[in-house]
């Protein structure tokens, strides 16, 4: 579809010099709004932010077209700027790297980012500090771009923490309500717990490979620079590695050396080989210094690294056990929920795993864990979503659940499908959130679905687009959501056929049940909001109106993508034969199947099953809520399961009781017991001892002659007695 643009894009060299503009535009937008926004009119502040996002998108699009212009066999665009951190254990620079994988993400980030900026101009039009909102939003884009385009894992970490900061600031945007600020803080802290895992992952990578770069530094050449790749010399069968190899060079070399047959796992005895570099044929010794206490098996270390990194991903991508921050994050303005907490930031965990997928592919244990956590999260969050009353809360739990599907895909070894679901989910979930925002906007900030209903006539555009989004989320065949979800589940079933590991079957069933729940709660939302009678007050009813064009336009664009995204982009991600197409389109090598037909045999039963559960879920929702039914108050319900689901299975309360409360109590106890009583007691006690001791001694000096005479006499007698005893 990009053929018509290709002739118009600049040369590789020109693009390399322009790449920096992708993060720079939003950063400048942030500075302008942040420093001078206070003096701007509201529309102008929004305009600055939106233009910054759009400009970034345009540059990104040109770069992506170049990267995907496979006819010329072009590799990724890679530019390295100044050195950032140089130590004796590793060194890294500020560098941007657009390869086929990051190009998908960068388009999602800047593209959907632009749409949501546009939407926000309408949504936030009446807010007191629009400029601050757009400053944060631009800063978020900047950080997200660093995360996606960073050429080393430390840059990814910069973006990773940076988007966390923006998330914190934007959740607490309306900080005057303490609840919002608390939600922001919770998001930051829970993310930090995950970041600890990420940090440990980076540390082990440095310990094992001695580098944080993904690929080696680019080499200047004719018409632009090239990043040397790791390859297998066809003649000598030797692995040729570039100078200063990056992480992906190491994994590729390991794959070429050890992964001969269909098995993807690294043998227990694998070692980092000494590589022959290209051209000069000199060997590079690998700075491998596995610290004591980490074991000495490379395969084991890689598993450990992958698990650490995945813990990082569970934080940012809201998986069990760290998903609790995301539902609370809905305290932020709705465009923020759409951009950060649905379409982009929360998918960075998936992106990070895919960035290092060649490492994860070595560890079956880690992949199984990822698959399991994904399946558990998908199901658990879907169960909670069934009973929520707040329209944004339903969508929030749905996001957690859908992120779970992405991890199921990754864990099943279908990395490309994980990214595909990131893409389609970005379309339909951003759409649903923006639609919900439009509804909330129309309903004078009402979010309780019990007070909605019958809006389909009054908000025709919102209704039509949200219906499309809901169909995609429910996984109705033909929609974009169906393409990605169906294929993920098929891969899991295929994995079961392939390995006969019953765990995969369990994960598959969990995925199917979750799909049923998804269809149900999605259409429960649709029926409660748009059908039946309007249950709001007269005052609110009076104000109901369709949103301005700035808000409707993004809805329409996203609805188109949510509907047709599967047809448009599916070919890039879905593989007919494992190990081929995805690599060509995405530079992702999915974990191969032992038997090629395992996957094919899974497709048909899976297709039938997912189709049935989607329709069943929608049908049940129609049966229950189609005529605008009333919802029982969950708090008063006698059904314990219903009540537990509404109360999120009390996870927050359990964490409070098990972690937060003990931490507070122990801190307080230590403060009094240790610091004040014990240590200061000892210190001040010693001082007291000296003082009291001297006042005792002071009394000896009485000034009375007879006392002194008596003391001298007793001393002499005692000394004489001592001498007598000693002589004997």
């Amino acid at each position, binding site marked *: 579809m990009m053929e018509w643009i290709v002739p118009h894009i600049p040369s590789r060299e020109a693009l390399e010099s322009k790449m920096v503009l992708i993060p720079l535009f939003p950063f400048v937008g942030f500075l302008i709004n942040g420093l001078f926004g206070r003096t701007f009119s509201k529309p102008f502040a929004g305009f600055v932010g939106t233009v910054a996002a759009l400009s970034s998108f345009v540059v990104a699009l040109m770069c992506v077209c170049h990267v995907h212009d496979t006819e010329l066999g072009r590799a990724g665009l890679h530019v390295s700027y100044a050195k950032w951190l140089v130590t004796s254990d590793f060194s890294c620079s500020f560098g941007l790297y657009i390869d086929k994988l990051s190009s998908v993400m960068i388009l999602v980030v800047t593209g959907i980012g632009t749409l949501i900026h546009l939407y926000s101009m309408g949504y936030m039009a009446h807010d007191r500090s629009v400029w601050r909102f757009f400053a944060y939003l631009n800063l978020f884009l900047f950080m997200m771009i660093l995360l996606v385009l960073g050429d080393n894992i430390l840059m990814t970490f910069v973006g990773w923490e940076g988007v966390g900061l923006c998330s914190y600031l934007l959740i607490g945007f309306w900080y005057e*309500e*303490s609840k919002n600020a608390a939600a922001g*803080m919770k998001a930051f802290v829970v993310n930090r717990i995950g970041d600890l895992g990420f940090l440990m992952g980076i540390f082990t990578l440095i310990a094992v490979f001695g580098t944080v770069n993904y690929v080696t530094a680019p080499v200047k050449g004719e018409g632009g620079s090239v990043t040397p790749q790791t390859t297998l010399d066809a003649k000598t069968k030797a692995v040729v590695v570039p100078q200063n190899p990056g992480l992906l060079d190491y994994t590729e070399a390991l794959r070429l050396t050890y992964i001969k047959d269909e098995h993807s796992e690294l043998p227990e005895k694998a070692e980092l080989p000494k590589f022959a570099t290209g051209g000069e044929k000199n060997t590079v010794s690998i700075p491998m210094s596995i610290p004591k206490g980490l074991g000495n098996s490379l395969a084991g270390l890689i598993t450990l690294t992958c698990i650490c990194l995945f813990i990082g991903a569970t934080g940012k991508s809201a998986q069990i056990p760290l998903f609790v921050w995301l539902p609370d994050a809905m305290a932020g303005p709705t465009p923020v929920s759409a951009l950060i907490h649905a379409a982009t930031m929360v998918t960075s965990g998936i992106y990070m795993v895919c960035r290092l997928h060649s490492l994860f592919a070595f560890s079956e244990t880690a992949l199984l864990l990822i698959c399991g956590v994904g399946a558990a999260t998908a199901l658990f969050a879907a169960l909670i979503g069934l009973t929520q009353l707040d329209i944004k809360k339903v969508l929030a739990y749905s996001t957690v659940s859908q992120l779970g599907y992405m991890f199921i895909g990754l864990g099943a070894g279908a990395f490309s499908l994980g990214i595909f679901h990131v893409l389609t989910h970005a379309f339909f979930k951003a759409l649903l959130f923006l639609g919900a925002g439009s509804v909330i906007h129309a309903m004078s900030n009402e979010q309780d679905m019990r007070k909605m209903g019958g809006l389909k006539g009054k908000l025709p555009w919102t209704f039509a687009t949200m219906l499309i989004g809901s169909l995609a989320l429910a996984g109705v065949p033909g929609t974009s959501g169906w393409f990605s979800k169906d294929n993920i589940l098929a891969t899991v079933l295929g994995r079961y056929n392939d390995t006969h590991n019953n765990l995969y079957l369990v994960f598959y069933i969990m995925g199917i049940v979750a799909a049923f729940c998804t269809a149900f709660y999605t259409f429960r939302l649709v029926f409660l909001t748009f059908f039946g009678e309007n249950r709001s007050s007269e005052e609110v009813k009076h104000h109901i109106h369709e949103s301005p064009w700035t808000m409707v336009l993004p809805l329409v664009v996203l609805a188109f993508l949510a509907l047709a995204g599967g047809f448009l982009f599916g070919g890039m991600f879905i593989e007919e034969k494992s190990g081929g197409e995805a690599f060509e389109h995405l530079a992702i090598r999915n974990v191969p199947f032992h038997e090629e037909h395992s996957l094919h045999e899974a497709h048909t039963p899976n297709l039938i099953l997912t189709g049935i559960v989607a329709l069943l879920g929608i049908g049940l929702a129609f049966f229950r809520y189609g005529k605008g039914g009333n919802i029982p108050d969950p708090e008063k319900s006698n059904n314990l399961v219903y009540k537990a689901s509404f109360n999120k299975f009390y996870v927050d309360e359990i964490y409070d009781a098990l972690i937060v409360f003990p931490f507070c109590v122990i801190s307080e106890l230590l403060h009094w017991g240790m610091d004040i009583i014990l240590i200061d007691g000892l210190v001040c006690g010693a001082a007291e001892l000296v003082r009291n001791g001297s006042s005792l001694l002071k009394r000896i000096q009485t000034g009375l002659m007879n006392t002194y005479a008596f003391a001298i006499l007793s001393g002499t007698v005692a000394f004489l007695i001592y001498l007598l005893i000693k002589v004997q």
Partner: protein
Amino acid sequence: MLLTWLIVLPVLGALPMFLAREQNARELKVWAFVVTLATVVASLPLWFSFAPGANGYAFSEAHKWVEFKDAAGKVYLNIGFNLGVDGISSLLILLTTFIMPIAMLSSWNYIQKRQKEFYIAMLLLETAMIGVFAATDLFLFYVFFEASLLPMYIIIGVWGGEEKIYATTKFVIYTAFGSLLMFVALLFVYFKTGAQNFDVVQLTAALAKARTLPVGDPGQLTRNAEFWCFWAFALAFAIKVPLFPVHTWLPDAHVQSPTPGSVVLAAVMLKMGGYGFLRIVFPFFPVAVAQYSNLFMIICVIGIIYGSMMAFVQTDIKKLVAYSSVAHMGTCMLGVFSMTTTGVQGGVYQMLNHGISTSALFLLIGMLYERTHTRLIAFYGGIAKSVPVFTTAFIIVTLSSIGLPLTNGFIGEFTCLLGGFLRNPMLGLLASTGVILGAVYMLFAVKRMFFGTIRREDLKHLRDLDGREKLVLAPLVIAIFAMGVAPTAFFDRIKPAAETYIGYSYTPEKEMKAAVVEK
């Protein structure tokens, strides 16, 4: 002569002030500020023309100072006025000179009584602090080390808060206790080894030689003696850092101290401890260091977790920051004790970072205190609305303090923790929980102070930062980002010195080799 001038400049500046009258407070303030600015200018060559010689020291100078001879005319005590800086001490001197004008400017309205004496004390303090980092003669080092206590004792004791006497006495007795032990150990080392003078390099060599002497030789440094001396020095420096469990003087001193005192205490004086470990303990007692570095790493980890938990329960924002210092210095020393190049580089970098971000926090708290006369967190709430610029500054500094990437805090924390991890992964993991805990206590405080609705009427009309206050904070905020984005120049500077200090570390093979050479 550069270093001598640097040391003397603040004292020279203080001299005419003795003659001035208290009524001319404004002129005195300006004069003191100008003197510190002049010191900044004078210290710039330390950055721009730093060229270490063969022994690793730049700007070396040696002057005869004190010489005692016995009846036979043999010199038995030789104290030199020897100065010199390596990559680490030059940065710490720069930190000192950089912080001082900021501290001076922050005292502008905070100090209301006895202004003349206050500024004299500050200038004397600067001299002592520069002296500590510039001295290569250990006796001289000790003199400056102790001399820096006196002005600080006075600053807290005279211009401090309600419990200033308790706090300042505790501070002085704690630190003096440690440094007296150090003094005894220093004299022991000097006389035992029969060194020619107190020069740190010569003493190190003399100690290394004394260690290899045969058993029974009067000049031999036994393992036992080495361990006692190690503990004497280590205790002195551990109190200064401060490491758990000898940290309890710090919260009291900080809370009672006036803002400029807290700034100097946090930014510079705590660094003397870490610097002492690197400069003296590592080269002098490698065997003991090899034996105890793991123990000290554990102490640092306890300090990180314990300090964070203490910070979490504080009700006074200044005390919270003081306890966060305990945690941050724990991170810093973890890097140092990891004895890896990256860790030591990170440790030194973290010293600078802590100097910048904690000073900035103390400054901000001081500014708030000037307006409301309370530091209780519960008093505030929702003031982001009335003082947006102040809030922005506070959040930026908070981000640096909790180590957000692209701020200086991240670089220091990351490299320290990496060093710790490479040395001992389990301890590295435990220490890294500080990353979470730091966010917990800082953001919790930010939430309670700045967010939510304003409940008190007077807080609605709180005055935002004025020009002078912005000027005080601007250099620190710039440094926070500059050092987060471009740490390379610093790391390159620190590297040779760090490698030298790690190079002293003890391994059995090394000692055998030394013994062979000796024969």
